[in-house]
């Protein structure tokens, strides 16, 4: 008997068949990975299991009995817990308060805060989920917030824990810690459903794997008996092309992007960047490594003009323009923050930045705008029902391709890419890498910021390491991850 089963689950969103007769069964105490490209239907399936969506057909069983899950409250009652892609915590409350909220221990009609803190401390002890019960959630790093979400589910005695892409927001170290926790939790008999699209993680922690593609199951594997190639085949229906060879082409031309002695203080007078100098030449990719918050944000905002007119930043020999320098193509990291306006159509999102060039005086040539968008959707293989649908209807990978389509078709010789493959699957990642390499080969100067060292090593000709606002090291593109990683922690070679 399985702890939870989804039987022939089908779910449509308008014309999109997000889940098409999916069967999935999770055994007690098992870590079950669910993998698939962006838009494969993973989140939808998990939302159905957690009562957030109603399936159009099919059923859900718990311990062999069919259950009706009309809301997350129903799901919680049936022993399900979920850690969402975006956390749902109250920043102004403490860890303990966030954990017990909605099911607070009560004494004499009042919330028993001491008991709450005690229970939470006991839970975190038991599962190795280290978190200070009295700390305010708002001040905690992402990895710890995620632990709070897990604690919340365990506090409600979840027997099935669903995690939707939990590692997308974590550093490699935090990911390792999370996996240790998940193993401990599974050992107590809790079943874990782990959604991811990183194959290394599947191989590292999964007992079994279910692969989804276009809403259907395209493979079921036992981790011990499969390999990454087999999984990739099931995920994208073909094998990956070997990664593009790097060229050791000497760069002779003058740099198009130059930063000289850039120092930036924040509002409190703390230096965020100190005497940073770098140059990027046409036809090269310069990688930017560093732990989060080492000055990447300030550097990139200076280079793109978004920080205003900053002395010491030059594009093709002239100072950067305040606002947004149109000479820079910029792929921002957070698709929901900067890169898109979710409520606007695909065409209107692709238009941003080009609206003035495309228009004669005041009037926006709507037909031409749509034609151009359609053209880019085709060229960049973006799957969208039409260019009139809101961009929020696209899967993350397709939205990212739309952002790249917009930016890489700007008439610019400098490309700034920030975590360009965060939260996208292997197929899209391959495509994004090919696009960046093609831009480089066309003579663009590319500044690539990534927290994935393997990505920097795959693409960059040189890698600069930022630490506490300074460039502390420069490596050739084929340096080892160990060396780069050491520089990222500030250890001098």
């Amino acid at each position, binding site marked *: 008997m399985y702890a939870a089963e989804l039987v022939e689950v089908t779910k449509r969103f308008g014309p999109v068949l997000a889940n098409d007769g999916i069967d999935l069964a999770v055994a007690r105490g098992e870590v079950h990975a669910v993998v698939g490209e962006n838009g494969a239907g993973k989140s939808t399936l998990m939302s159905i299991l957690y009562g*957030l969506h109603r399936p159009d057909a099919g059923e859900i069983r718990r311990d062999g009995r069919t259950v009706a899950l009309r809301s997350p409250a129903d799901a919680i009652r049936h022993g399900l817990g979920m850690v969402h892609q975006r956390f749902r915590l109250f920043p102004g409350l403490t860890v303990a308060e966030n954990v017990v909220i909605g099911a607070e221990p009560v004494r004499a009609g009042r919330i028993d805060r001491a008991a709450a803190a005690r229970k939470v401390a006991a839970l975190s002890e038991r599962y190795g989920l280290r978190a200070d019960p009295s700390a305010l959630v708002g001040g905690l790093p992402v990895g710890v917030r995620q632990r709070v979400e897990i604690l919340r589910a365990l506090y409600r005695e979840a027997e099935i824990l669903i995690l939707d892409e939990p590692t997308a927001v974590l550093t490699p170290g935090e990911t390792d810690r999370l996996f240790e926790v998940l193993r401990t939790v599974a050992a107590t008999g809790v079943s874990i459903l782990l959604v991811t699209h990183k194959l290394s993680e599947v191989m590292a922690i999964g007992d079994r794997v279910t692969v989804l593609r276009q809403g259907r199951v395209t493979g079921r594997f036992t981790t011990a008996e499969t390999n990454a190639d087999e999984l990739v085949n099931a995920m994208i229906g073909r094998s990956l092309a070997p990664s593009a060879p790097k060229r050791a082409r000497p760069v002779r031309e003058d740099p198009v992007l130059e930063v000289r002695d850039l120092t930036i203080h924040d509002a409190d007078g703390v230096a965020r960047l100190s005497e940073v100098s770098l140059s990027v030449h046409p036809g090269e990719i310069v990688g930017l490594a560093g732990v989060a918050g080492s000055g990447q944000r300030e550097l990139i905002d200076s280079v793109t003009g978004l920080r205003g007119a900053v002395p010491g930043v030059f594009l093709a020999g002239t100072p950067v323009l305040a606002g947004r320098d149109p000479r820079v193509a910029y792929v921002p990291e957070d698709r929901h923050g*900067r890169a898109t*306006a979710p409520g606007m159509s695909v065409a209107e999102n692709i238009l*941003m930045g080009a609206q003035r060039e495309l*228009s004669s005086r005041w*009037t926006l040539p709507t037909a031409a705008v749509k034609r151009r968008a359609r053209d880019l959707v085709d060229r960049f293989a973006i799957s969208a029902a039409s260019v009139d649908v809101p961009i929020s209807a696209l899967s993350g990978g397709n939205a990212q391709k739309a952002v790249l389509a917009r930016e890489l078709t700007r008439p610019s010789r400098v490309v700034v890419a920030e975590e360009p493959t965060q939260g996208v699957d292997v197929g899209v990642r391959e495509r994004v890498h090919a696009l960046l390499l093609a831009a480089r080969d066309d003579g663009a100067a590319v500044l690539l910021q990534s927290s994935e060292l393997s990505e920097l090593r795959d693409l960059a000709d040189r890698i600069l390491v930022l630490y506490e606002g300074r460039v502390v090291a420069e490596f050739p593109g084929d340096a080892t991850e160990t060396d780069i990683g050491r520089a990222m922690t500030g250890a001098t070679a």
Partner: protein
Amino acid sequence: MTAPALARRVVVSAPVVAVAGALALTTLVMLVVGVDPTLAYPALIRGAVADGNLEYTVAAFVPTLGMALAFALPLRAGEFNLGGDGQLAAGGVAAAALALLVPLPPVVAVVLPLVAGALAGGLVAAVAAPLSTRLKIPAIVSTLLISTPAVALASYLVRFPLAEAGTGIAQTPTLPDAAHLPFLGGSGYVTIGLPLIVVLTGLWLYADGRTVTGYEIRATGQNREFARYGGVRVDRVAAVALAGGGAFAGLSGALIVLGPPYRFVDGALTAPGYTFTAVAAVLLASARPVVVPLTVALLTVLQVGGQGMEREAGVPSQLTQIVQGLIIVIVAVLATLQARRRR
């Protein structure tokens, strides 16, 4: 979309649900307080459209539509302009002052006060822009804060420097004939303000959907950080949108003053509650600009008809304000539910 599907979509759409719900609740209130709805509603309709009342309804439609634009335009940029009353009064007093103090030739005597009214309204609204962009006081608060002193200033000007001498009534003298808005056709109420505001509404709809400025305003409203990243000068766009909204309010004030009874009567601009009705109409249109004229028409009928209902059926006209309030509440609830369902 098939015809039945389209029909279903219209019937269950937020505006229809809100109006139906509000009317149902109002009916309930009538029954509770002992008013016969079968008398009250016909009285309401008659009060709005019968016996020459239609003209009066159309005349009230003009400033309400103007005030709706005053709220809707900044809303597209994500700014809530709740200071309509102040902008309306400023526009009215500017138009009256110009018409009274500066002798102008025909035509110019109408056009210039209208322009002055729009400028004054725009100026009052624009004061809120730096407060929100620099001092981070949200426009929803700053516009409201500035509104009260603006209304008071207009009131002071009307009572003292511009007051009609010797009557002791808080109003300006009648404006010179050249400044009177011509009537439309044979009407005694409806002036050329109607075609003017209709044309301006059309221009706004066109600008919203088909111009660079409209696009940048919408982008700013949808995601300010996205617009900024795209090179849009978001602070300026927000200021322009607020000022534009204020200009519509100021123009509405000028249209009222230049129409019958051709003077600024203290309180006459703000007492009918155009601003509130307009806010309700725009929210009812739930982010669909083309629908705004329709919702304005609907609420104007309710508003004017309410007075007829009071005369004939003895139902206090405040009841129509309850309807408007309920509509806003229902629209807000529906929007929240929808957002929750989308998660």
